[in-house]
């Protein structure tokens, strides 16, 4: 991996996230409707956290606050003990849609984030090329987004995020639009990426199995105003979806949602 080059000699772990009294409301029919209320949470550097909850409970809102794309009404987000303001180079976001620029080739799309961060065109392309190899799209460097399938396009989006070597990867239902088969492969791929890159991963998902498969902890948000809860996932990795503990875990989590 290319990470060694950028990690400073001092062995400080980075990518630690803390939420302090984070609150956000949105106006709805003339009234302010609270979406997130006083959320406090510590996320360890290198941890994988899954955020689940019913539709409209504020998962995307929370992720946007973490990304710095939106500002909280109250409270703050600390990264490595420093409050964030706006977007930062230590974070990268992966969305449900790949959000590729249709006029750029796969290679240039992956190089895009690097170029925005001031890396020269040639260097950005060289690094992008390595990243594309890693997501298995080496043969498609010169393809345009419209020539890709959904799963391939999403992998290009992931490669673009990884190319900037973030400490924290923020994912908003990244596999939500994929078919079941592709989704399984991509979950394996995310697990591998997380393991190899040692990033902090914060993943919004509506798929409980996906949450258990990938996460160290699951944060459950609710719509009824009750406080969010976190559930640790103490299962050995790599995880086996058919192991009795895994199945039991899934049952527990489904119980949380009133699904039995």
């Amino acid at each position, binding site marked *: 991996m290319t990470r060694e080059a950028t990690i400073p000699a001092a062995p400080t772990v980075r990518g630690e996230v803390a939420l302090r009294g984070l609150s956000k409301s949105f106006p709805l029919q003339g009234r302010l409707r609270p979406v997130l209320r006083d959320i406090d949470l510590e996320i360890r550097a290198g941890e994988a956290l899954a955020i689940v909850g019913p539709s409209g409970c504020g998962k995307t809102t929370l992720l946007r606050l973490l990304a710095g794309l939106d500002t909280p009404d109250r409270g703050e987000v600390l990264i490595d003990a420093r409050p964030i303001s706006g*977007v930062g180079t230590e974070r990268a976001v992966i969305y449900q*849609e790949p959000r590729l620029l249709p*006029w750029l080739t796969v290679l240039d799309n992956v190089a895009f984030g690097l170029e*925005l961060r001031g890396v020269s065109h040639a260097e950005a392309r060289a690094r992008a090329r390595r990243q594309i190899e890693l997501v298995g799209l080496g043969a498609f460097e010169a393809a345009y987004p419209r020539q890709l399938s959904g799963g391939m396009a999403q992998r290009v989006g992931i490669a673009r995020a990884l190319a900037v070597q973030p400490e924290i990867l923020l994912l908003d239902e990244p596999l939500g639009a994929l078919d079941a088969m592709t989704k399984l492969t991509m979950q394996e791929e995310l697990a591998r990426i997380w393991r190899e890159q040692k990033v902090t991963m914060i993943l919004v998902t509506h798929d409980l199995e996906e949450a258990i498969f990938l996460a160290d902890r699951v944060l459950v948000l609710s719509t009824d105003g009750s406080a969010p809860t976190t559930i640790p996932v103490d299962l050995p990795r790599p995880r086996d979806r058919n192991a009795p503990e895994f199945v039991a875990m899934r049952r527990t989590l489904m119980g949380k949602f009133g699904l039995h």
Partner: protein
Amino acid sequence: MTLEILDSPRRRPASRRVLPPAPPLRAFLSRYGLVIGFLLLWEAASRLGWVSAAVLPPLEQVAAALWDGLASGALVDDIAASLQRAGIAFAAAVGLGIPLGLLMGQLGPVERALDPLLQLFRQTSALALYPVFILLLGLGETSKVFVIFWATLFPILLATIGGVKEVDRKLIEMAQSYGAGQLQVFRRVVLPASVPSIFVGLRLSATTALLLLIAAEMIGANKGIGFQVMNAQYNFQIPLMFAAIFLLAGLGLAANGLLVWLQRRLCRWSLDQA
């Protein structure tokens, strides 16, 4: 991972893999058959006396008039005069319309302030304003160029504004999340995303430019293709009149062809490879 379609991209060129290439002759006929039919009908109508040959001369007379005009240089002067008028006006409209459109599309308040005025101007036919321009600028070149400029400005301007405003917010947000500033968002996302709709405006404007060119040249001109159409008709040089009309059509096709070619080069990504 498979290459099969896992989702359905918005536009997938269906024709690309299904249709075998048509044999050249058939392809040619299916594309130009009606044009050929029209010319044959013309020739027949003229020769068989369905329409007086004085009004609708046989095509070879039109071709001869065209050839004479070009060889003697008379029509060449007209073409040059027309191209100059339309060219200056079109260039000015592009030079003002695209930057202004990009600015207006980006800056909401500017757009909201200028929009009512723009709608008013746009809804007022440039031809109706031509007399006003003549009063203000005289009957010379300036008023001619200006009326063409006026009419061509709005399609470009409105298409550019529309293009900028329709840029996918999600792409802008993606760029911002990688730390893009306003200028970078503009240069790397907004501008390239607007190119296809700017081209729609350019093609519309090119058509409008030729339309207004002819109208302007029919009033108080002594050179130009539009003048030649009128003049030939006054002098009852009907083949010459048709020659000038064909020239006009050729000019329009050439302008459009040029823009299509440019569009293919600049935004291949947005076109279905039909």
